[in-house]
């Protein structure tokens, strides 16, 4: 019997497969499809202190082997999440990673404190990398000093594990990640989307109302695997890989590159059970090779 269990700092996950923030709602939307408590965990839609309506439409459009989105962090707000969603998730034994977003360090701290007061939250994931909002988001993630300040402030405000979700657009990616590690982050999630644009030649305007949107899906994957490879070598804390994972083979690429866990994003849109399928696929892969999943982490790095 091989093991799929992985450790992200002090947090033990029963599977390395999580679902990505923004691609899995609050989890309860998947009731018709599968038991989400079997997953390594779910990352919630990015939560802010106040509810947000999000950007005007059009918000999404398809691109070659990918899609752009500019949702604008539409969410129910942290209070409604704690009141309406979390009790059910807790009751079902779901491992909940609360993804949080704010435009100031004070608000990041307030969000972390609010979630710290609840049972049933396994970790917080700081979204310092959203490309689709005017303030906050990526502003914190581009600069090592600012990313470290946010991380340190949240670290001091909660006993929960703190994950930081990186933007691939941070100029000095390793510098930003190391600064977060030094500031007390328990893990780095990499990567968020990369900004892109599509022009509608009929209207002769950008297709998205926000003009730009974040590129996700398989088109992003080689970039994400490369970044995970680089971060895993540079950091002591675990890296959680994300970017265009659609099947077991994709997830394995990230793990072999050095990811201790993976997040499934856009793939859930076209098949709600994608994450479950990948989770089972990884278990089968390990059974067939009689290895634990942890034996595979970073294995692509071994000398020839």
């Amino acid at each position, binding site marked *: 019997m091989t093991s799929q269990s992985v450790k992200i700092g002090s947090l033990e996950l029963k599977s390395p497969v999580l679902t990505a923030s923004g691609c899995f709602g609050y989890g309860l939307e998947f009731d018709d*499809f599968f038991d989400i408590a079997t997953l390594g965990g779910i990352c919630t839609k990015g939560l802010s202190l106040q509810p947000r309506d999000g950007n*005007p*439409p*059009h918000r*999404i459009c398809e691109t070659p082997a990918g899609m752009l989105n500019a949702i604008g962090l539409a969410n129910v707000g942290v209070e409604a999440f704690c009141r309406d969603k979390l009790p059910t998730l807790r009751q079902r034994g779901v491992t909940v990673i609360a993804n949080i977003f704010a435009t100031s360090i004070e608000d990041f701290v307030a969000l972390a404190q609010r979630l710290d007061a609840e049972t049933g939250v396994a970790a917080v994931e700081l979204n310092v990398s959203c490309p689709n909002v005017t303030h906050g988001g990526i502003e914190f993630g581009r600069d090592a000093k600012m990313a470290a300040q946010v991380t340190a402030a949240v670290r001091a405000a909660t006993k929960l594990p703190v994950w930081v979700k990186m933007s691939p657009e941070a100029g000095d990616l390793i510098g930003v990640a190391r600064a977060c590690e030094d500031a007390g982050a328990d893990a780095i999630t990499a990567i968020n989307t990369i900004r892109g644009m599509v022009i509608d030649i*009929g209207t002769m305007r950008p297709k998205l109302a926000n003009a730009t949107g974040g590129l996700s899906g398989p088109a992003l994957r080689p970039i994400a695997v490369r970044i995970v490879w680089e971060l895993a070598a540079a950091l002591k804390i675990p890296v959680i890989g994300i970017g265009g994972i659609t099947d077991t083979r994709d997830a394995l690429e990230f793990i072999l590159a050095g990811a201790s866990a993976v997040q499934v994003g856009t793939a859930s849109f076209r098949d709600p059970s994608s994450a479950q399928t990948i989770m089972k696929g990884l278990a089968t892969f390990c059974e067939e090779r009689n290895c634990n999943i942890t034996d595979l982490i970073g294995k692509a790095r071994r000398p020839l």
Partner: protein
Amino acid sequence: MSVNHSHEDLAPRQLVRTHLLRRESIGNSYHVLTFEAGSGLQPKPGQFTMIRSPEWGQAPLLPRPMSFLSGGPLPSLLVKVCGDGSARLGRAEPGEPFDLLGPLGTAWHTPDPDRRQVLVAGGVGIAPLLFLARSLGKPKKRPILLYGGRTQRDLPLSEDAIDVCDVQVTTEDGSAGHRGRVTDLLAETLGSDTEVFTCGPDRMMAAVARTCVNAGVPCEVSLEAPMACGYGVCLGCAIPAAKGGYIYACVSGPCINARDIDWERTHATFGESSLKVIAK
């Protein structure tokens, strides 16, 4: 006015792997696709599916939202070719595997037996309305179908509709029926004992909604918006709501009371790109 189906009435959503049974072409741009779904999908009129073939590989990446034209063991869809995904659907051959996620979204409300149903369709928007008309059994009065298209080639299934509706067609170029738009005929068709169901381009539905409000006639619309998932998580299909903020076409719709939509903001935000008839 009758109430909408509550979610408890609707069949659970599932992803069904099936295959194409047959494809019937209507002119160059329209196709009726019929699938073998066994007991897997049980859509009510107005509900939709996200459809994609595993043979598409990674592009087109996402499934396409399509309203059901019929349900039962052999569900069908009406496709208008207008982009990469619909083009692939338009040349699919029998036997090709397809994944259908559904049934999704809200159904049309149950038609009021004491009212006469007026169906207002724009082009490919006929699909969920014909499904509704065929589900009525033997109503006291046959529903009226006002069916508009740019030309006579944009009125697929108009012959089939004659079996279950009193049909009046309009074309913008006058190549069939009344020259002009469906809304030219709507006001005179409405009475205090009618209710309206409409599906078509946003601008058409906005005009239908306005006419119905003025006449004090209930009106339900079938929304369309780009969407990635179809079940409420991608948040791509935002439609400006009358009460402010947005509703999501996939879960609050597609079938929704016309009064719940902010048509001014819908037009302002979607702009010209929403004015063409898109595959429904």
